[in-house]
């Protein structure tokens, strides 16, 4: 019994320790965001890496999500003669929920893993220590550009995903389900409020930050050669995905539930 309690306790303490470490890491990184020197060229390169090169994968997931959403909603809603609500359901689901979450998860897989692998390799080959000896702060040079890029690019990606997702629903709605294109679009716009889109974009910014943060944190603290880098990559993706879903619930519950 005591053994059992001890193991529960040690797991709990380990959890608290890593949470604390992550909080300190995030705090340090944030404080460096506001102190010079800044590296605008590096930020720009990260924006291109995170944003531009993620467009195909995010666009593809968005269009299929929009399409399947239209199909499923139609199936369900036609049972009580509410087919006309399909376009509204599609646009609200995509902008408020599925756009940010699915884009966030795809970017977590693509970018969180890449960041963790790159920083992890730099760590285990002493490149991060080398930065310090060359009078360059690794936080400012490596981590801040990635965090800023994550924060600003994901909302843009999600805006694109929203448009493509709605378009996917539109294609299925008009070509397969026989809606009138004009009616479908006007219903899409009629019931959409600015807040629906904005809430999604705020979530996206938070998700982008979380993905970059988890990638940086696990990469920066990886040790022990190739195996360590592999473990860091896995942890980065898994923890970023869980954090996205957790933040998604919290943000929705706290900020946007009543509107």
């Amino acid at each position, binding site marked *: 019994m005591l053994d059992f309690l001890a193991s529960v306790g040690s797991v709990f303490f380990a959890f608290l320790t890593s949470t604390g470490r992550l909080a300190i890491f995030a705090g340090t990184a944030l404080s460096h965001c506001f102190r010079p*020197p800044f590296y605008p060229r590096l930020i720009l390169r990260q924006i291109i890496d995170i944003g531009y090169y993620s467009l195909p994968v995010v666009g593809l997931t968005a269009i299929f999500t929009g399409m399947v959403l239209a199909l499923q909603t139609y199936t369900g809603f036609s049972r009580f003669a509410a087919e006309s609500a399909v376009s509204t359901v599609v646009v609200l689901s995509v902008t408020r929920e599925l756009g940010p979450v699915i884009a966030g998860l795809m970017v977590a897989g693509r970018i969180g893993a890449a960041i963790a692998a790159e920083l992890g390799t*730099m760590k285990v*080959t*002493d*490149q991060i*220590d*080398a930065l*310090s*000896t*060359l*009078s*360059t*702060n690794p936080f400012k*040079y490596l981590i801040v550009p990635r965090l800023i890029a994550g924060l600003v690019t994901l909302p843009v990606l999600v805006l694109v995903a929203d448009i493509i997702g709605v378009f996917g629903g539109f294609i299925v709605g008009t070509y397969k389900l026989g809606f009138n294109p004009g009616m479908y679009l006007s219903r899409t716009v009629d019931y959409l409020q600015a807040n629906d889109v904005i809430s999604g974009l705020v979530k996206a910014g938070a998700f982008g930050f979380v993905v970059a943060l988890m990638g940086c944190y696990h990469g920066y603290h990886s040790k022990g050669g190739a195996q360590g880098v592999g473990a860091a990559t896995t942890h980065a993706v898994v923890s970023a995905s869980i954090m996205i879903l957790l933040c998604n619930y919290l943000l929705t519950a706290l900020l946007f539930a009543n509107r």
Partner: protein
Amino acid sequence: MSGPKISVRGLRKSFGRKVVLDGIDIDVGRQESLVIIGGSGTGKSVLIKCIIGLIQPDAGSIKLDGQEVADLGRGDREKTMQKFGMLFQGGALFDSLPVWENVAFGLIQGRGMDRAAAKEIAIRKLAQVGLGAEVGELSPSELSGGMQKRVALARAIAAEPEIVIFDEPTTGLDPIMSDVINELIVKCVKELGITAISITHDMASARKISDRIAMIYKGKIIWTGATAEIDRSGNEYVDQFIHGRATGPIQMEVRAL
């Protein structure tokens, strides 16, 4: 100024329950080349990382030009780091940047120098280590191990530091390339008038590049003396190490505790 360049007293560092440095006392004179020898896992790397400021020691004093640096905050420590250059064991070149930008990195990012001017200096430094300007345009992954070490050496001296630290400069190189690197180190130390600290377990290299040798064992300095005296140290640990004997007072720990 008189007095040693670097003075370390009672330096201690533990990781968890494992004591790595157990009260290190050592001085390094101005423009002296000190080599620290010792087996794997005896704390050599941790010692130099403490001196350069990459690791915060638990206790003890590190004086640089008579000024205490061990207890400095992060920001001030970064300033003292500018006095150092370091050649890392694996080279630690940035693989995302071309060779010349690696060499010029400290000048461009650290000192805010103009890129064109920094490139000129980088090419001059590459020439000092026997590499042509065309190498500067290659990426580090295209270079052989020996060339990577040379580039890393050029990078370590590019910002003209007062102290250069060499972490196992000849590990993984063939004997001839090892000797080339040794000669480059001797040349750089002499020409630039720098203070050098090297760690190695390559005795040929240690004899060639050092003025003085110190041996570290179980987190303590157990012997120091001029290079010429190492063969008559009268210390059985040193004798066992420099002759590479498996039997003697030093027992290999099979498992790191």
